[in-house]
């Protein structure tokens, strides 16, 4: 039911305006209304809020990392986890759903994505999942990633799209803006609070002093700062059992109408030419005992002209 700028999509579905103004006017989530009051003429499928959480699979943080001969991160398929930042995002998506109703769809792109992190996200409570998986995606840079996510999000008719603040393997923090530009929609980044009201989303973002707010019409993208909530939920036993039966689609580039030449290693403009382990020389002068310690630190600061 999402509406994107006319030039970018033809998906301009029925039921959008009624549903948005309905939620906006009453100020209550549709889920909490008695069934008799629900507008009978609306196609439920078409009118629920669709929240999509973009989730990257990253190598487990416990495993030592190295670059392969192709100068790319050597990945071991069994060892992927939900990008730690995206756990906060999934949590936020589920909390929004509890408030507003609708669906939470998990979207992941990868050359040969494993389904373990996806299963875990579904076990946390998401409604369904989509994997965009294609061998042509190997070596994709941030622009290619955004291109693919944007195409998948349009196909999903997402209303509210949530991203993490960055990945824990590459730390770009740039895929959300790239995706927003390809979709022609606003991005509210680094949110510490998200509020959907009627047809708009408002976020708060921490400033050096206090916070700022930003508001945009839906459909919109939001990236979530880790600071939003401290405790992403653990999947319950019931969640784990039901996750096995939840819908999980796999799409290829062809399903998204994308040309393989616009993604993967061939399309990337960045080149890695080498890598060296970091070895910092530290003095490691260790002294024991609190007595005299302050004086030694003070002398160190003066010796090294720090003060």
């Amino acid at each position, binding site marked *: 039911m999402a509406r994107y700028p006319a030039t970018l999509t033809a998906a301009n579905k029925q039921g959008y305006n009624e549903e948005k103004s309905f939620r906006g006017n009453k100020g209550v989530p549709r889920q909490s209304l008695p069934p008799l009051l629900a507008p009978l003429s609306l196609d439920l499928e078409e009118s629920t809020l669709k929240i999509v959480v973009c989730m990257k699979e990253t190598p487990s943080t416990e495993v030592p*990392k*190295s*670059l392969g001969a192709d100068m790319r991160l050597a990945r071991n398929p069994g060892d992927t986890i939900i990008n*730690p930042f995206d756990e906060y995002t999934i949590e936020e998506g589920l909390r929004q759903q509890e408030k507003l109703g609708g669906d939470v769809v998990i979207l992941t792109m990868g050359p040969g994505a494993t389904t373990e992190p996806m299963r875990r996200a579904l076990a946390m409570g998401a409604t369904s999942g989509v994997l965009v998986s294609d061998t042509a995606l190997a070596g994709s*840079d*941030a*622009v290619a990633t*955004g291109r693919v996510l944007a195409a998948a999000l349009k196909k999903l008719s997402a209303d509210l799209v949530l991203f993490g603040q960055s990945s*824990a*393997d*590459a730390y770009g*923090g*740039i895929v959300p*803006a*790239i995706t*927003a*530009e390809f979709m*022609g929609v*606003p991005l*509210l*980044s680094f949110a510490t609070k998200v509020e959907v009201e009627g047809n708009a989303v408002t976020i708060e973002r*921490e*400033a050096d*002093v*206090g*916070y*700022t707010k930003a*508001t945009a*019409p839906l459909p919109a993208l939001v990236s979530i700062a*880790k600071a939003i909530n401290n405790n992403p939920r653990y999947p319950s036993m019931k969640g784990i059992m039901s996750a096995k039966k939840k819908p999980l689609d796999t799409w290829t580039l062809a399903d998204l109408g994308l040309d393989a030449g616009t993604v993967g290693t061939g399309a*990337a*403009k*960045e080149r*890695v*030419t*080498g*890598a*060296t*382990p*970091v070895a*910092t020389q530290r*003095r*490691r*002068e*260790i*002294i*024991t*005992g*609190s007595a005299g*310690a*302050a*004086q*030694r*630190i*003070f002398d*160190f*600061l*003066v010796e090294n002209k*720090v*003060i």
Partner: protein
Amino acid sequence: MTNDIWAVAELEGGKLKNISLQLASKAAQLAAALGGQSAAVALGQGAQAAAAALGATGVNAVLVSESDIYDTYLVQPATDVLAQLIQQRQPKAVLLPATVTGRDVAGRLAARLGLGVEYNVTSADVAEGEIAMVVPAFGGQLNVNATFAGDGTRLILARQNAFAATKTGSGTTTETLPAPAAPANGAKISGPFGTEGATEEGHMTTVNGHPQYVPPPSRSNVEEAAIIVSGGRGVGGPEGFADLDALAQALGGAVGSSRPVTDDEWLPHHHHIGQTGRTVKPELYIACGISGAVQHQAGMQTSKYIIAINKDKDAPIFTFCDLGVVGDLKAIIPELTKLVQDYKASH
């Protein structure tokens, strides 16, 4: 494509952020090595006033544009102006700050114009007519060498303190750019809010029912600070941060922390340093009651000097510090603060 190099400045509340001068200095240096022209671009409230400081870094030109529209909408107006300018003038590379705003502008430019973007760059030089960069990877365990292929303007997102700010130039020209149009479905900004209680004193407050210590704004920006006094779980609670703040004040530095400290809201979130928090590179980092987990190390290991205070002699922090003290921070910090205060009073 020309051999010109640009730096995009960042203004916040009309004030030029430090990183802008670092990027402008680097742009001047890279352009000189390539035989091109350098420019700094400043957009939004305060741009005109920032031109002199940007020009003093040695750039050939400063491009400015002031309009309420930049400060009313998130990044879209700045993207529009920069995209047009890049298409018209074809610079070889554009340096942007790896801040929230810098990333959002770079991402949109890359998608709109089909450009490559290298991020988290900590070093950039010219080699064989191309820009050769260094990017730390995997929590700083590895330095990756990166460059660009093909044509098209190169977008480079540089980390805070990656480059030194220089003061060489004078006689820069200032060019005023046309004002942007309001974006059709733009994200509107308002605020800042919650600044009422902000004082120049550190104080205790309550957040989500927990006590929290709030250092004053002048000691809250860890990314721009030359000295950081950082505390971990070993500080014992929010109240303990008053002592660290007093030391930071005496040293003219900022207060940092490990992640559990901000997870438990002993301090506001923007003090958190490490893999999932801020990356810092101060002259001096004093780690107090921080064990030194790799995820913490990732955010502070490029500090010039690291001093650790920890009561556990086997704490990992002692393997990557310049001076380590096995002792009780509660006794040492106030004594050190006094020594620094006395020294500063007499110098």
